[in-house]
């Protein structure tokens, strides 16, 4: 494995990564993919390191993905479950983190409903902080695993048209992907009702469409977002029925994208809401590869932040 050139102490967002950082993470992740195919899926790169999964929002896939990633690198991992946590007893986030830090972890992976919470942690915490999703802000490992998936399928990350469909306003996945593909110079189309896709997103280097056909046309990648009812997204359009009629992806609309186009979704998917069920299971769908790649990307991030450069993959 090559020497680390990755100089970040935290992973707070795609915002703080250079194109070269993104390349380093993806290359490292590619190297880690192989480990997950072995009979013994474990390397000692993070042996003796402690990772805390600090999740204040419900999450199955991201939390398990970080857990598996840490364990395959031989790190010790503890899950801090907010539902049984001291937060219910009125403890502040700061006190919770200071308490955990008194146990000397190396990395804290945080998911929190308030945007900027990981940034707040860096103002007082000593550990490396990984943002596993903060409010509507960023979800950097998701955008990185999406990028790895695109690269695998399309053999390039350049000169692409990325169409993202749905609740852009409340989506951290969308933001991280927009920032990442803007850095890579790709064309970005954001599609949804104007109440969920404000025009100002054009200042982030994207095109905004309320007609899914126009937006998807010629796309290399179509990313569907979940309708986040728990974030009150439903008040932004009249009904799920009307939303489905206007913004769900089906074969007919997907055929407007390039022949080689792939369909992605960060999950969990709502079948027959934003995605026609047969599309989710089609060969064009890369949804399950995204999940698989999530582990490699998270291994790469954990390794690059705290891995021992003298440990090799073998």
């Amino acid at each position, binding site marked *: 494995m090559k020497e680390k050139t990755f100089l970040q102490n935290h992973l707070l967002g795609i915002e703080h990564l250079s194109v070269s950082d993104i390349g380093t993470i993806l290359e490292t992740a590619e190297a880690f993919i192989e480990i997950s195919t072995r009979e013994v899926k474990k390397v000692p790169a993070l042996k003796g390191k402690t990772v805390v999964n600090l999740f204040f929002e419900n999450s199955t896939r991201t939390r398990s993905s970080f857990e598996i990633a840490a364990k395959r690198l031989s790190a010790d991992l503890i899950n801090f479950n907010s539902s049984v946590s001291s937060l219910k007893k009125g403890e502040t986030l700061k006190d919770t983190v200071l308490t955990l830090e008194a146990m000397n972890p190396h990395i804290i992976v945080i998911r929190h409903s*308030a945007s900027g919470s990981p940034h707040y942690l860096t103002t007082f915490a000593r550990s490396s902080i990984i943002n596993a999703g903060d409010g509507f802000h960023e979800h950097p490992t998701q955008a990185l695993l999406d990028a790895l998936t695109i690269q695998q399928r399309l053999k390039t990350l350049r000169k692409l048209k990325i169409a993202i469909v749905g609740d852009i306003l409340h989506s951290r996945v969308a933001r991280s992907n927009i920032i990442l593909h803007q850095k890579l110079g790709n064309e970005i189309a954001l599609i949804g009702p104007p109440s969920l896709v404000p025009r100002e997103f054009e200042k982030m280097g994207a095109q905004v469409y309320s007609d899914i056909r126009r937006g998807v046309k010629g796309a290399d990648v179509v990313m569907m977002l979940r309708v986040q009812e728990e974030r009150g997204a439903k008040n932004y359009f009249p009904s799920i029925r009307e939303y489905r009629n206007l913004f769900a992806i089906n074969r007919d609309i997907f055929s407007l994208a390039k022949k080689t186009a792939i369909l992605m979704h960060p999950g969990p998917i709502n079948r027959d809401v934003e995605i026609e069920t047969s599309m989710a299971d089609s060969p064009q769908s890369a949804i399950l590869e995204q999940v698989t790649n999530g582990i490699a990307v998270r291994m790469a991030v954990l390794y690059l932040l705290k891995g021992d450069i003298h440990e090799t993959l073998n």
Partner: protein
Amino acid sequence: MKLLIKNGRLVDPVGAVDRTMDILIENGKFKEIARSIKKSSGCPTLNAQGLIVAPGFIDMHTHLREPGQENKESIESGSRAAVHGGFTAIACMANTEPVNDNRSVTEYIIARAKQVGLVNIFPIAAVSKGQLGENLVEMADLVEGGAVAFSDDGHCVMKADLIRKALEYASMLDVPIIEHPEDHSISAEGQVNEGFISYRYGLRGILKAAEEVIVARDLILQERIQSRLHLTHISTAGSVELIRNARRAKTPVSADATPHHLLLNETLIQSYNPVYKVKPPLRTEADRLELIRGLQDGTIDCIASDHAPHTRDDKDKEFEYAPFGVIGLESTFAVIHDRLVRSGLLSVTRLVELLSSNPARVLGLKDRGRVKPGFPADLTIFDPKRRFKIEEKDFRSKANNCPFLGWEGQGAIEHTIVAGNMVFSRKNRV
């Protein structure tokens, strides 16, 4: 009790004075203002050479938190902060616990202010009982008890019918209604100015329209009612334009802006530092510049601090969970003087209008805001050249949620005089 202030540059916009004058104070009132007043034996004398002497500054929008939230601020700590910042009078908002919606709370605040005895405190009572926006408070009784204005402040009066009745009823008492213009159905759970920055950083937005629709609504009502309407902490270029047009149409209205909206913009929230979380939110640079034009052309009458103290723990949180508000009593003069007066955007005379004579006029404090024989001897004396640095260690306020911490510049309060008493002196002596 006498005090003679010699050789200071007196800036008194209402009296159209801007020249070196001596001022004699006797028994808490201005006795004589003249080119030269002879020292008499036994009369304490203050040499104000090189200093600017202004009618006492008045902050017409302060939160003192007492009664009820004395862990954030108290009438005593707020009074100390006020005089440290050069204010001789402050008007305190009604969102205490209990709400200042009845005479007993107003009288309590006034009694506590007298016990502390540092600064004039003028309570602003709520417009509606409990600031719930449903029923008017007993305005006449409150005025008799000492309330000088009515405001539901952060709980903007959402029912147009209620604000109409409040304006109409208050006209009988000749007191202002102070509106915090915010349509809560638009601002809802918003955290920061809605626009590119809020979208980019994933924070819920507060549209400028949340302010402007209430400004427009109130101005339309006021056009007919012709009562006294004051719009506080105006933050958008659109609001400035609405007020400017209303003034042209001779609709009676006054307005204030805060130092933070005049000197800071929304880009600061990219740090997610809750010290920049305030209502209305910090807006765009274009809004900020239009507010300054509003100060220059007379559209905006006053600068008010909206001093909103919170405990350190309150503000040491995730951005979304931290409360809105910044403190300003101890930084307002310094930052405004340095950034707007020294830079040439405002004259010293305009500064004194904005901080003293206009707030006195808006609040109906008829014997304040000017230096005139017989008026209470409230003076703010500052050194326009002395360097300052805003530092937490100097704060008399219990709070530290000041967005100007670390700012440096020129212009420092030397003496604050209330009713002839030196209640603050930089060097702690007369």
